[in-house]
């Protein structure tokens, strides 16, 4: 087979446009779109790509998110490679179909531009929207910058369409901080991506007699089996994503550490756990603190669902303290979502590591360098055995 050379185009573009490019280079068949801030320019860019002949996909301009998701469900069941995008209230409006995608084992890929919920009236960033749907059976990957959005969409198709997985993937990036941030993005060629992402055969509904599926009434035994298989596929997706990230690195020259990325963790005594756009800010702070001789490391969480429990336990087991930055509130459970997940992961392994939760960045409140410095300093004092506050709402301090 002739190998296609990767001719990358460099363009300064927004996170949303990067997402649109990500979808375009994967050559989907059907795209269901509906505008919502801060995701809107994804659907504008995709429509323009189609108008310019760069995108061959059928674009279904739905009359609401519920039909945007419905259309990709139907198309994906027929065998199509599909794409959609949404945010916040749009995600909840498509919820009844959103939960159907993993139950039907449809490899849909979509992007979510993380945003606050209403009320009070805001369109600003937080992780609150995506955290409300973490237990739906979708694979959730969070990213840090605009290049990672594009690259992760390619990886997401690879993961979703794998015969062992067949689950939908939601690529989540922070609204405003990434959706409208412009930075240089390398756009690989369609042909090169196609080589990395060949079409996979899978069960579909169709008119041919060899393509025939049927869903019957779920009864107890069958239901348990279906759910068990789905859960097992989610577990498999952790190792699969690690592998895909490595393969992607070999092909494209960029990789992101798989399911989590460790930054300056070699001899760290305590660590900071971040997810999303503020990880970039945290890297600056970690570098600064390291220069001062403070042994702090950073862990960037890429995969939130399934939660990489084993991997986190193995990298955190020798830490004296962990500080977690949460951009969402788990109502009715003291702290934020990442904190909750990490605590329960550590508990099962008998690790008595002090974990402090810092709730920050709600409603687009900037997570700045001084703010992260405070978090590092507080976690440092916890690592030295000082008493500490379990949950800290940074904006209220």
């Amino acid at each position, binding site marked *: 087979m002739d190998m296609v050379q990767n001719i990358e185009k460099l363009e300064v573009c927004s996170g949303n446009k990067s997402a649109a490019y990500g979808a375009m280079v994967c050559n989907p068949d059907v795209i269901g779109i509906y505008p919502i801030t801060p995701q809107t320019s994804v659907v504008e860019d995709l429509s323009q790509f189609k108008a310019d002949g760069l995108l061959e996909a059928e674009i279904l301009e739905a*009359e609401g998110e519920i*039909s945007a998701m419905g259309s990709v469900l139907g*198309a994906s069941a027929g065998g199509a490679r599909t794409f959609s995008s949404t945010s916040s209230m749009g995600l909840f409006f498509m919820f009844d179909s959103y939960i159907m995608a993993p139950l039907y084992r449809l490899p849909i890929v979509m992007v979510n531009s993380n945003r606050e919920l209403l009320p009070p009236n805001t369109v600003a960033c937080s992780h609150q929207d995506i955290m409300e749907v973490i237990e739906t059976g979708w694979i959730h990957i969070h990213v840090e910058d605009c290049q990672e959005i594009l690259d992760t969409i390619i990886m997401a198709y690879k993961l979703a369409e794998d015969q062992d997985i067949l689950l939908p993937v939601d690529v989540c990036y922070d609204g405003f901080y990434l959706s409208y941030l412009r930075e240089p993005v390398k756009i690989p060629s369609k042909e090169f991506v196609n080589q990395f992402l060949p079409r996979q055969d899978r069960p579909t509904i169709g008119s041919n007699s060899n393509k025939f599926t049927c869903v*019957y*009434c779920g009864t107890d035994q069958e239901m348990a089996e279906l759910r068990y298989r789905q859960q097992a596929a989610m577990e498999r997706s952790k190792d699969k994503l690690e592998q895909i990230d490595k393969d992607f690195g070999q092909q494209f020259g960029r990789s992101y550490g798989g399911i989590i990325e460790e930054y300056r963790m070699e001899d760290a005594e305590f660590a900071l756990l971040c997810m999303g756009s503020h990880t970039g800010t945290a890297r600056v702070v970690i570098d600064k603190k390291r220069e001062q001789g403070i042994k702090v490391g950073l862990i960037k969480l890429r995969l939130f669902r399934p939660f990489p429990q084993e991997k986190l336990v193995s990298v955190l087991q020798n830490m004296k303290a962990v500080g977690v930055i949460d951009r969402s509130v788990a109502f009715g459970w003291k702290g934020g979502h990442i904190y909750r997940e990490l605590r329960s992961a550590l508990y099962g392994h008998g690790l008595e590591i002090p974990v402090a939760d810092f709730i920050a960045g709600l409603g687009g409140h900037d997570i700045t360098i001084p703010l992260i410095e405070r978090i590092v300093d507080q976690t440092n004092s916890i690592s030295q055995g000082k008493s500490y506050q379990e949950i800290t709402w940074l904006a209220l301090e």
Partner: protein
Amino acid sequence: MTENPLFKFPKARRVYDQIGEDRLSHGIIACQGCPEELGLRYVLRTIGEDAVLFGIPGCSILMFMGNNQGSYTKVPWMMGAMTNISAMASGYSRYLQRTNQKGTPIVIAGDGSASDVGFQSLSGAAERGEKIIFVCLDNEGYMNTGMQRSSCTPYKSWTSTTPVGDFSQGKSTDSKYLPVLIAFHNNAYTATANVAFLDDYIKKLYKAKDAIQSGMAYIHLFCPCVTGWRFGTEKTIEVAQKATDTNYYPLWEAEYGKFNMTYEPKKVLPIKDYLSMLGKYRHLKDPEIEEIQNHVDTRYNTIKALTQKDQAA
């Protein structure tokens, strides 16, 4: 739209001659006397083997899957949500177009989905001209969950959520006239059909099949519900016949907004003949029946005016 050669034969008999293999297996999962199974049987007979069915949680999906006793359809089908089944079929249809595959996506859904919770999605599909056939089985309420009112439930009708008591005499508002609303989307084909007028229904199915070459086809099928409307299981077709003969349920079609009456009763019966057959109207007194007669006349005259406008032009 290409004219189907079958329409050259005026006699219904010739239409039946052309009908293909039965793609709904024998036996029935629906209630005794239910006409929905009849409606579905003729959908599959006319559309043929490239049909792909989209159903919703309700009576339609139970007919597809035979309720755990094996699949009752010999064509592929998929279950979607009541809220967006039109969009699911549309997405599937778009994929067929993108890859040049054959297939006729058909939605089989009730009036609850079409007129209430899935109305937005249906309206969107009609406006976008999605190449799907939507067959709405109108039994005037949520009959699968047990006779709750929908917006297709008619005036004064008893349902379990518009009950009859000292302070309530059935539904207080008239039904939403869904087929006209859909026809005003200027979609390729819209028609009302009735299980008691099978030849008319079959012709409309063939027209719908032709129409989806260019846009969306919608067929509103009148399906009296034995359990929900309270009548004898042997009376289904008689009830359906009376609905059209009293002008309660006129049969018409519209192609891109051009209306055409497809059946006119030779002798129009008073609405009382229809209402008196149904247990759900048992509580009605003469003044109320007269009121309903007015509602029926108004609606019929509207349709009549719509068809006459196009005949004049």
